């Protein structure tokens, strides 16, 4: 019997967790500031926004798809949230309405991606490449290529708030990770996502509704984008129609992959996404502290992604019995 680890961690997490620990030790040696609580909390906060999206992305990838539209969708939903807050006067009710609109809009956007992928039989790469362009363009159009600036201090305060000293975004990230980890590992739906991504035909024969299962992975991702959109726009108390959440899709996919979920689908881990996101954040943090040019940080990130996949490439299957 395979050993079970607490908190839904899996043995698959061992590799990425090991990398995280090594990186942690290296960083604390490299810079005395690294271990300061404020710095560590900052890292967590930095990675929460794309990390939350990564949680949904894991479902999409495990189910055998990909979603490239999440970055521009975040900007779009963030912008709408700011508009809603302003329209309704910026009070508590306005903020609540912004949350509802953002989550609903995320679900609907994901539904659109999912329907075209499953019912329209268009490759997910293409569908979401299309919606990537659409969401960014709509944001630019509505905002006249400028800023969406919130007129509510309360909205901005929410974005900067902390609970028990930990930023709200980090709380949301971890709570969602906990819930989605449960959804993936402990419910029928999670099992079906793995089955569909592993072998669509077997899933069909097992009376699993392949289309519905797959469609929902995009909806889940859309809802995660809704969370991220509100948290991100409230942190800045504004959305920049051309800059906000650019390349979030890459960060989200990178976190999933570094965390040990294979791009081929069929299996994966949610806590791996959390670990992967933190690894990315720590690397950025270290490069900043070592004052490496910001222009070079992308190179390091790229190398880490490739190395992570290289190390994890189907190591569990090699030498197994046919």
């Amino acid at each position, binding site marked *: 019997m395979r050993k079970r680890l607490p908190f839904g961690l899996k043995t698959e997490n061992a590799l990425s967790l090991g990398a995280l620990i090594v990186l942690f030790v290296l960083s604390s040696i490299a810079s005395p500031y690294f271990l300061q609580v404020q710095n560590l909390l900052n890292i967590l906060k930095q990675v929460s926004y794309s990390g939350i999206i990564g949680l949904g992305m894991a479902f999409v990838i495990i189910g055998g798809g990909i979603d490239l539209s999440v970055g521009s969708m975040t900007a779009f939903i963030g912008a709408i949230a700011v508009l809603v807050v302003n329209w309704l006067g910026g009070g508590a009710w306005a903020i609540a309405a912004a949350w509802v609109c953002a989550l609903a809009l995320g679900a609907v956007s994901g539904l659109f991606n999912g329907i075209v992928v499953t019912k329209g039989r268009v490759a997910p790469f293409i569908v979401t490449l299309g919606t990537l362009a659409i969401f960014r363009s709509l944001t630019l159009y509505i905002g006249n290529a400028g800023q969406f600036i919130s007129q509510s201090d309360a909205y901005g305060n929410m974005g900067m708030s902390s609970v028990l000293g930990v930023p709200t975004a980090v709380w949301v990230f971890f709570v969602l990770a906990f819930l989605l980890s449960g959804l993936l590992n402990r419910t029928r739906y999670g099992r079906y996502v793995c089955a569909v991504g592993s072998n669509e035909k077997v899933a069909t*024969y*097992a009376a699993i509704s392949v289309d519905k299962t797959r469609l929902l992975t995009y909806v889940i991702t859309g809802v995660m984008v809704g969370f991220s959109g509100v948290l991100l726009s409230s942190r800045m108390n504004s959305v920049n129609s051309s800059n906000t959440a650019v390349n979030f899709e890459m960060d989200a996919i990178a976190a999933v992959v570094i965390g040990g979920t294979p791009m081929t689908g069929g299996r994966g881990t949610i806590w791996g996404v959390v670990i992967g996101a933190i690894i990315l954040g720590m690397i950025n943090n270290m490069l900043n502290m070592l004052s490496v040019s910001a222009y070079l940080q992308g190179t390091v990130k790229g190398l880490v992604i490739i190395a992570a996949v290289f190390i994890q490439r189907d190591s569990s299957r090699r030498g197994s019995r046919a």
Partner: protein
Amino acid sequence: MTDALVRTSGITKEFSSVRVLDDISIEIRAGEILGIIGENGAGKSTFIKILSGIYAPTSGSIEFDGRRVDIRDAAAAKRIGISLIPQEFNLIETLNVYENIFLGAELRTGGGLLDRRGMIAQTRELMKELGATVDPAASIRTLSVAQKQMVEIAKAIKVESRLLIMDEPTTVLTAREIDILFGLMRRLKARGVTIVYISHKLKEVRSICDRVMILRDGRFICLEEADALEIDEMARRMVGRELNQIFPPKRRSEGAVAFRVEALAVPDILSDLSFEIREGEILGFAGLIGAGRTELAEAIMGIRRISSGRIFVGGRELRIGSPASAVNAGLAYLSEDRQGAGVLTSFALHKNVTLVSLAEYAHPLISRAKELEKTRFYVDQFEIKAPSLDARLENLSGGNQQKVSLAKSLDTDPKVLIVDEPTRGVDVKAKRDIYAFIRELADRGLAVMFISSELEEVMGMCGRVIVMREGRAVGELTGERITEEEIMYYAMGIKGGA
């Protein structure tokens, strides 16, 4: 003739410290056809995968033609002159025949462009040599299984293989196609090609092979002249004990009608199929490959769209259209394509068992303890050999995977069980187990639809047989009339109208 082409010394293979092949030292004579038999998990596949460079042995060495060789990968094996024709073909479906045969060794014209005409001519020559009728320019997708096999063999012959390894080549062939294959094997042998032949069909092994090696649990049992081994003796040595009657006794079923199909039709595939099965009855479906039997099962299960027809389960009409409604109505289907449609090899054992019936275990969180408990039940009942209850299925042998697939189908507690080639690629012991389970299920009141291309098992298991041809039921045989000849007459259109 008695020169050794291959000599293995102490070949041993371990997977994560489990020994699956133990100290195999044999000689394969030049120009012979050597049969390898054994139960699933006996180590046959591992042995030939080592010979063909897919696995590296944990210890031991191989001599080829008197020289020590290190077969590092499939390309190295090919260079030496060893070709493997795997059970699952290695053909690129979207390319055509000659492109597959010349893949990686394309002919070029003087200008460096592909010499299409030359390759087609050579392919035609190869096919003529093999006595096969396959158009060199046909797309692989359009070929029958037998034709695909011919293409695989042509690929092997083209590189002048001296040792040709065939892994269960006859499993998917009809009787006529098997005759053609055997003729071809004899011709190859006459040309000096040495053949290693793995099969579960002992009768075939005895008729085509010069010598037979028997493996059991990874160990060498014997290597003898095929003439000297009776089939009973082969079976006995494979399992290591006496095998008595392989089929359970038949029983007459007088139960109520449990399953009725009326005028089912699928455009271009099935027309006007009607039949009924009683509780406790095992109704056989025989016919040639392509007669529409699997398609019939798929139509009933809602996987294939039908144009007309009605289905009743226990008197209630079933809304046809989705696998979910079929399962809810009490139908279960064991697919012929075990790895393609039956089980998830990358999933754990217990997750496969509960795949269809998962709702029973989730309220709404899945109870792992309940899953494992039920899995233990099936592991005990079906004697499934597995390292653990949550082992990945790819670590189980084919026969055990098939038992898992059966457990998965049964865990929904069905009223009607459709089994499609239930013992394909399964060893004698597992076959007998599966026959016994199916009989037992029928005795408990299930209606069983038994689709099989192995006439022996149709005759052994069924009290009534429907023969299909070209999407129609062309004959129905009962009792004494169920004979091999009678079934073939109907299947081939000699009886039962054109």
